C-alpha cells in the first residue's frame, strides 16, 4: 500500500499540496508583492524626502500644492456625502421594493465602473462645456462648470457613484424586510424605522462604502483631468502631482504624491478595521 507510506502529519487536509509546490507559490506571490507594491511605495517616500524634511514641508506649503489639497478636499467633501445619500436611497429602493425599471437601475449603477473616466470627463465637457448643450445657458447666468470646481465635483461624483450603493444592495437584500416590518408593527413611523433599525443594521457596510468612495474621490485622475482644464490653482492633488512632475519638480511631485499615498495607506487600515467590525456584525446576524 503506497498510501500508508505517506506520513499522516504532512497530509493535513485534502487540498494540501506538496512542500515544493507550496514554497514556489508563496515565493512567486511575495516576489510580485515586492516588485509591484512595496518597491513603488518605498520609492515614493524616498523621493519625497530626498532633499530633507525641511524641503519636503516647504514644497508642500507651495500655494498651488495647498490649493490642490483644498480642491481635492472640497471635491471629496461634496461627492462622498451626496453619493452616500444616493447609495442608501438606491439600495433601499432596490432591496426593499419591487418597481418598474428596478433591473435597469441596478445595471445603470455599474456604468461608472465600466466607462473609462476620461470618457466620463468628455461627456461632462460635451454637456456643460462652452459648446455643450447647457454650456451657453449656464454661461449667460454666470455659472462656470467646466474648467472650474463644479466640473471637478461632477466628475468625481460620477466616478465614485457606485461605491456606496454597490456595497449596500447585497447587504440590504440579505437582511430582508422582517426587522423593518417588526418596527412597523411596533408603531414606528418611516423615519423612526430608518434611524432606529435600518441604519444601525447597515452602518458597517455604509462606512465601508464611504471609505472606498473617498479613496476613489482622492485618487481620481482621468475624468477630473479632462474637466479641470489644468488651470493653475484649480488643480486637484493628482493633477498637481502631474503638473509638478512635468515642470521638472520631481521632489515636489513626490512630496504631494506621498501625501496621497499616506491617505491611501490610512484608507487600507481603516477599511481593514471596518471589515473586521462588519464581519463580527454579520456573524451576529446569521445566528439570529
Amino acid at each position, binding site marked *: 500500500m503506497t498510501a500508508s507510506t505517506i506520513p499522516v502529519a504532512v497530509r493535513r487536509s485534502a487540498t494540501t499540496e506538496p512542500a515544493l509546490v507550496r514554497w514556489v507559490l508563496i515565493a512567486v506571490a511575495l516576489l510580485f508583492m515586492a516588485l509591484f507594491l512595496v518597491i513603488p511605495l518605498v520609492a515614493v517616500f524616498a523621493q519625497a524626502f530626498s532633499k530633507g524634511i525641511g524641503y519636503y514641508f516647504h514644497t508642500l506649503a507651495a500655494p498651488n500644492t495647498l490649493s490642490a489639497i483644498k480642491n481635492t478636499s472640497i471635491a471629496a467633501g461634496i461627492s462622498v456625502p451626496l453619493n452616500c445619500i444616493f447609495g442608501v436611497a438606491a439600495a433601499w429602493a432596490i432591496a426593499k421594493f419591487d418597481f418598474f425599471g428596478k433591473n435597469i437601475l441596478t445595471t445603470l449603477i455599474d456604468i461608472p465602473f465600466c466607462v473609462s473616466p476620461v470618457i466620463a470627463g468628455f461627456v461632462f465637457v460635451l454637456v456643460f462645456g462652452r459648446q455643450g448643450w447647457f454650456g451657453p445657458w449656464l454661461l449667460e447666468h454666470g455659472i462656470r462648470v467646466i474648467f472650474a470646481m463644479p466640473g471637478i465635483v461632477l466628475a468625481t461624483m460620477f466616478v465614485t457613484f457606485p461605491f456606496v450603493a454597490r456595497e449596500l444592495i447585497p447587504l440590504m437584500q440579505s437582511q430582508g424586510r*422582517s*426587522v423593518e*416590518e*417588526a418596527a412597523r*408593527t*411596533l408603531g414606528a*413611523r418611516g423615519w423612526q424605522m430608518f434611524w*432606529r433599525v435600518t441604519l*444601525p443594521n447597515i452602518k458597517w457596510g455604509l462606512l465601508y462604502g464611504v471609505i472606498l468612495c473617498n479613496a476613489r474621490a482622492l485618487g481620481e485622475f482621468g475624468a477630473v483631468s479632462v474637466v479641470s482644464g489644468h488651470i493653475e490653482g484649480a488643480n486637484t492633488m493628482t493633477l498637481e502631482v502631474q503638473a509638478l512632475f512635468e515642470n521638472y519638480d520631481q521632489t515636489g511631485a513626490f512630496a504631494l504624491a506621498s501625501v496621497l499615498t499616506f491617505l491611501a495607506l490610512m484608507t487600507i487600515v481603516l477599511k481593514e478595521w471596518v471589515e473586521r467590525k462588519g464581519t463580527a456584525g454579520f456573524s*451576529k446576524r446569521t445566528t439570529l
Partner: protein
Amino acid sequence: MSVEVRNISKKFERDTSALDDVSLKIESGELVALLGPSGSGKTTLLRIIGGLEFPDNPGAQVLFHGSDVTGLPAHKREAGFAFQHYALFRHLTVFENIAFGLRVRPFWKRPREAQIRERVGILLKLIQLEGLAKRFPSQLSGGQRQRVALARALALEPKVLLLDEPFGALDAKVRKELRLWLRTLHEELHVTTLFVTHDQEEALEVAGRVAILREGKIEQIGTPEEIYDHPATPFVYDFLGNVNLFKGRVRDGAVQIGDSKFAAPEMSGDNGFLATAFVRPHDVSVTREPAGPPAFAASILRFHVIGPLAELELKRTDSNETFTAQLSKERFHELNPHPGERVFVELHNVKVFPEDYSI
C-alpha cells in the same frame, strides 16, 4: 377585541400563497390557529390582518372590533406581531428590544423612562428572562429569542396578537414547552390571538379553534375536537393525521370493503357508488381470530415499536392493498405477531367522503 376578515383576495406574481375570497371571524379573547401546508396562504392572511400586506380586491374588509382597518398600515393598527425568525433588533439589548414600541411612540403618548423600565420589567418577568435584560439577541437561545419577540409584541398591550409560525424554527422539545407556555400566557392575558402553523399537532394542542387553509381558501374551522372527529373534507382528514385508504362501495349506510361491511352513517342516502373509505391507523384493530363478520384477512409485512405505540404494516389478502395499524405496546405484546403471519382486521370510525379525492 374581535377580529374579522371579509372576502379577502390576494394574488402574487411568483408564489402560490394567494388568498381566494377568505372570510373569518375571531371573537374577542379567542386563541385561533391558522393551519395549512406551505403555500396555503395562511401567513398571507395573518400579514393582511397585521397590515403588512393588503388585499387586492376592493370589496375586502379587515375589521378590528367592528371598525374597518382595511387601509390602515401596520404601525397604526396596534396589533402585536411576532415573526417566524423573531426579527429581533440585533443591535439592541433584550431590554431595548422590548422597550422599542414604547420608545417610538409620539412624544405626547410616550411613557416616561421610569414607566418604560417598569413595563419592560413586568414583561421580562412574564417571559421568565429577568436576568437577561442586558444580553444581545445573539447571546440567546432560539426559545429565549422567541419569548423576547413575544414580549416585544406585548409591550404596547395590543388587543390582537398575531404570531407567524411562532415555534417553527425551534427544536421539538423547546417547541413543546413554549406551546404550553403560550397557552398559559393566553389564559392569563386573554388577548385575541391568531397564530399560523403548519404543524397539526401544535394547532390541535394550543388553539381553541382551528381554521384549516388549503390553496387560499378556508377548508374548515372549528374546535380541535370538531375538526378531528368530523373533518369536513378529505383534505382536512388527511392533513390532521396519518390515514389509510380503502376502496369500497357504499350501500345502505355502510361501506363494503372486500367481503366486509363497515358502518358509514353519513352515507345512508346514497347507494351503490364507488368510494374511498378513510380510517386512522389507531382505528384499525388486529386480532388472530376473526372477531365477527365485518373483519377481513390480512398478512403482516413488518412492524416497529416507538415508545408506547407499535405500528404494523399490513397487506389485505384479497386485494394486496397495504395499510397501517397502530396498537398500544401492551396490545402488541399480547398479540405477539410475526412477519408474514395471517391476521384479521376490523375497522372503526370509517369515514367516507362523497367527492373524489386522492392523496
